[in-house]
């Protein structure tokens, strides 16, 4: 490892989905706050095992969608009924129906952007550097291994007891990661 030498956290490896799920419950019950589980795919039930609340991505999407619909309706009203109205086939200058499709499409468009950008900002992504990505073993997190990382900044962190906890939780391999 070619880090700065300052410890970042303790990383524990697990080999099955069930073992990491049970270990996460133990870490949660030990009242750690700055820790995370790393899995190659979302493990069913892990949010509950970690005590994570429902994601707030939906709000970003909702705001995007509401903006899209409103701006679509307003835009079409402004263009075709207010700024330069033209009579076409005796149709009304504005009605809630003919602008619906473009407004609907804008709803979907901005709601989708809201969801994606909301997800990225809640996850603090993109980020170009992460201490864990330098760890050679951690590369397996996208392959078939599961990891629990407890950061040294956690108020509950104490090298000896934390290691003990992760060992009793069933980890076969524990090491330190540098910043």
């Amino acid at each position, binding site marked *: 490892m070619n880090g700065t030498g300052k410890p970042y956290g303790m990383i524990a490896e697990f080999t*099955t*989905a*069930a073992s990491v*799920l*049970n270990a996460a*419950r133990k870490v949660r019950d030990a009242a750690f706050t700055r820790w*995370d*589980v*790393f*899995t*190659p*795919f*979302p*493990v*069913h*039930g*892990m*949010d*509950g*095992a970690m005590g*994570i609340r*429902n*994601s*707030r*991505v*939906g709000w970003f*999407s909702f705001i995007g969608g509401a903006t899209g619909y409103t701006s679509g309706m307003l835009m*079409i009203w402004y*263009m*075709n009924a207010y*700024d*330069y109205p*033209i009579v*076409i*086939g005796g*149709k009304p200058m504005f009605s809630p129906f*003919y*602008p619906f*499709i*473009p407004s*609907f*499409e*804008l709803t*979907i*468009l901005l*709601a*989708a952007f809201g*969801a994606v950008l909301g*997800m*990225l900002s809640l*996850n603090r*992504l*993109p980020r170009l550097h*992460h201490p*864990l990505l330098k760890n050679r073993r951690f*590369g397996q*997190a*996208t*392959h*078939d291994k599961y990891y629990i990382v407890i950061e040294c900044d956690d108020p509950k962190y104490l090298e000896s007891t934390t290691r003990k906890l992760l060992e009793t939780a069933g980890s076969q391999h524990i090491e330190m990661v540098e910043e």
Partner: protein
Amino acid sequence: MSNNLPNQVLPPPPGLERIPLVENQRSPGWITDKVAGIIEAKTPAWWWWAFIPSLFLTLLLLTMLTYLISSGVGVWGLNHPVMWGWAIVNFVWWIGIGHAGTLISAVLFLLRQKWRTSINRAAEAMTIFAVMCAGIYPLVHIGRVWYGWWLFPIPNSNGIWPQFRSPLMWDVFAVSTYFTVSLLFWYVGLIPDLAILRDRSKTRARQFFYGLFALGWTGSNRHWSNYEKAYLILAGLATPLVLSVHSTVSMDFSVSQLPGWHTTIFPPYFVAGAIYSGFGMVLTLMVPLRKMLKLEEIVTMRHIDLMCKVTLATGSIVGYAYCMEYFIAWYSGNPYERWTFWHRLFGKYWYGGWAMLVFNAMVPQLFWFKKCRQNLVIVFIISILANIGMWFERFVIVAGSLYQDFVPSNWGYYKPTWVDVCTYLGTFGLFFTLFLLFLRFLPLIATSEVKGITPQADPHHPLGGARSKEVLPHDK
């Protein structure tokens, strides 16, 4: 942690086992190696044999477009009274093909159809490339391409805005949103898989590019939690979107007053036809691909079987829509309607009318038989016939409704020119060039999603390490 407790999950009785979605109980690691291995291996010879002709056809497309733009739309076979020819036919056809990708990625996700994971990535790529091919046509068919910006909500030099009472404007919004959202959905799905490739890559260039687009993904569960929510929302948004896109396309026709176009059945009929042709294309691509890339354990016969069933279902909806169209044409008592529909089958374009009836409504009925669904040669042939049939459906709707309108002195006949044909061939080149590049550089199977549906990924399954008691407590 005692290892000698009995497994909590009992195997189902014999004969009732569920056919697995990944055969031979392959582990998550095996799946990663398999899919990433395709990209990491040496480029196979067949890839070049497919890529070079595709690239040549792409150049043909560029040449044809240059010729069209520099000469005018007169180089196409358009003439009074058929002013919408192959350009619109091909536009509708390509965009219809895209629909299966969104159906697989979004609708089947909401319906919790786990089998979608093996095919959704390739199908979404197909969607994006098909929409790109489709998007070329409306842009160039306007004749004076340099006025294309009049389609966007920008006032022209006289201060006049685009007219939103025209369905063509709705189409602009529908198609551009569809493309953008499909791309977003595809990319979001790719992020964890790009991280896989980043972590495996041996060269600096690969590390850099996959790393850049993986956005620093680590597989953190706090991230997965937001990610899964965003993915669910995107699926929920893409579902009404995909239904709206071909509905809007159909309104380009049905909002007009022309017999053959002016029908209320068009939106659902177009959507069903789109999904039908799209599944045809997915099968056309996946049946040879699974063999050439040795993916039979991930894209199993069960997947093929299920795709055939969707094809059967949508083909039957299309068949029902044809019957309704004919019934209403007769029942309306409108002589022009009756004339148009009679001439679909017995007029100058009789071959198109019969092609659509036979290939779209009748041929997929073979999929009622398991023997046909399990025979890859038959599946492949039907999948191609489906797309030929759907092409003829659009041709019959466009040219067949226009060439003989209300006044006999106004009648004419439409036939494409060599430029029409070469442009259409060229779009195939573009499609396959992009698709082959996708196969070479991106994972064609949604690796982390497939891993997530294996029993090894399920903490409540013995293969996922489940033992009695300790997994039982329910959180929250």
